[in-house]
C-alpha cells in the first residue's frame, strides 16, 4: 500500500524531499511498519524520529493522523484505514517549543 507521510521542515531538508513523501508498506499498516519503510527509503532519517536501538519516538516529536494524536499508541497498533488507503497522510511533526 502506498502511504503518504508528511515530514517537518528539518527532516525534509535532511532527506532532500518535499513536504510529503510516498512510501510502500506491505502487510499491516502500523506506526512501526510506516517508520521502518520510511527509514529504508530515506536512510538519512534513521535515528531522527526514533532511537536507533530502542525504536522509541523522540520525546519532542508527535505522530498525528485523521485529526488524532497517535503518538502514545502502540507502534504495532493498526493505523486508521484512511492512512492505509492513502486518503490521509501520516504526519510527523515537531512539538512546539520556544527558543
Amino acid at each position, binding site marked *: 500500500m502506498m502511504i503518504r507521510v508528511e515530514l*517537518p*521542515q*528539518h*527532516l525534509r531538508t*535532511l532527506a532532500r524531499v518535499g513536504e510529503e513523501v510516498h512510501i510502500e508498506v506491505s502487510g499491516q499498516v502500523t506506526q512501526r511498519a510506516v517508520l521502518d519503510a520510511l527509514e529504508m527509503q530515506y*536512510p*538519512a532519517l*534513521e*535515528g*531522527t*524520529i526514533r*532511537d*536507533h*536501538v530502542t525504536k522509541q519516538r*523522540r520525546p*519532542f*516529536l508527535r505522530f498525528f493522523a485523521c485529526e488524532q494524536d497517535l503518538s502514545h499508541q502502540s507502534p504495532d497498533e493498526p493505523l486508521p484505514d484512511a492512512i492505509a488507503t492513502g486518503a490521509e497522510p501520516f504526519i510527523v511533526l*515537531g*512539538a512546539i*517549543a520556544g527558543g
Partner: protein
Amino acid sequence: MSGVRVLVGTKKGAFILTSDGKRDTWDVAGPHFGGWEMYHLKGSPVDPNRIYASQSSGWFGQTMQRSSDGGKTWEVIGNKFVYDGPTGTHQWYDGTPHPWEFKRVWHLEPSLTDPDTVYAGVEDAAIFKSTDGGRTWSELPGLRNSETGSKWQPGAGGLCLHTILLDPDNHDRMFIAISAAGAFRTADGGKSWKPITKGLYSKYLPNPTAEVGHCVHRIAQHRSRPNTLFMQKHWDVMRTDNAGDEWTKISGNLPTDFGFVIDVNTNEPDTIYVVPIKSDSEHFPPEGALRVYRSKSGGHEWEPMTKGLPQKDCYVNVLRDAMAVDGLDKCGVYFGTTGGQVYASPDGGDTWKAIVHDLPAVLSVEVQTLR
C-alpha cells in the same frame, strides 16, 4: 597563494569564512544546516576538502554530515552511536548511579594520516572511531569501562568528552578531556586509559586532589612538543611537560584564571592564549572588557591583547571549542563568542578584527590553512 578557511559552528547553523593569506577581507558562506545546533566542524589535516560536522537538535537528535569539497556540498553520514556492550552507570548529579545515555557529539578529531578515519567525543562521555569516512562508528569502550568510569559525574553542561588530542609522533597515544571527570591518556590506541590529573587542585571536590572529578575545560598541544600540554580548567590554567604525569599551575598574573578556551601559537610553542572569564557564576569577561591574554613564556607571565576588541560593555562568553589558530606566518588566532562575533588576529594576537558580528551564539571555531 595561501589562504584560510574558518569553520564556525553555532547554535543555529554552520558558517564558513574564507580569506586569502592576508586575512584582511573575508567571505562568509552559510548558514549551512540552518536551525540546527552545530557543535563542531573539523577538516582532515591530510585532505582539507574533507570536513566532518556534528549536527544536532533537541527534536531530531544527532545527525552527522561530511563534505568532500571544502564545505560547498554535504552528505549525511552515519549517526548510530551505540555504546559497546553493557552501558553500566556513572554518577548522576545527586550522586546516584545513572545509566550512560548518548546525547550528542561534542567534538570531532580527524586522523592525522587518513581522511577516512575520525574520532568523535560524545556526551555521555565516550570516544567513538570511524574508519570509513563516518559511515559507521564504533566505541573505544576501554575509556568508559576504565576503573574510574562509574565515578564520573556530569558538570552543568553535561558529561561531555570535548577534547581529543592525537599525538603526531605516536599514533597509539591520545589525550582526551571530559567535563567533569578530568583528563585521560591512552598509549595503546584507545584500548586502555589512565587518568592524568596529578597536580590538579579543584576546591569544589570533597578531595581537591582526587584522581577524577576535575572539570577540565580544554587542553591544547603544539605539534612539535607532544609531551607539553596546556589546560584551561574550570579554575586554573595548567601545564605539563611530561604528557600529563604531573601538572603545574601557570595562571600567574591573569586577572582571573577561570575560562574555557586555550590554544598554542603554531610557530611559537611557548606562546599560548586564553580568554579570562570573570568566574564560574558570571560567564563574561571581567569589567566588560574582552581581552585575550597571551603568554610568550609558556605561562606565568601574561599580557592583555585588546586592540580591536571591545573594551567596555562586553558581556559575551567564549566557549571551550571556540578558539583556533592557523598555520601561517604570522600565526592567525581566531575565536567566537556567544554574542555571535568571530574575531581574527592575523598577527599572533597583537591586533583583532571581527570577521562577522551577528551570527547565532558560536559553539566552535576551527581553522584550515590552505596552501
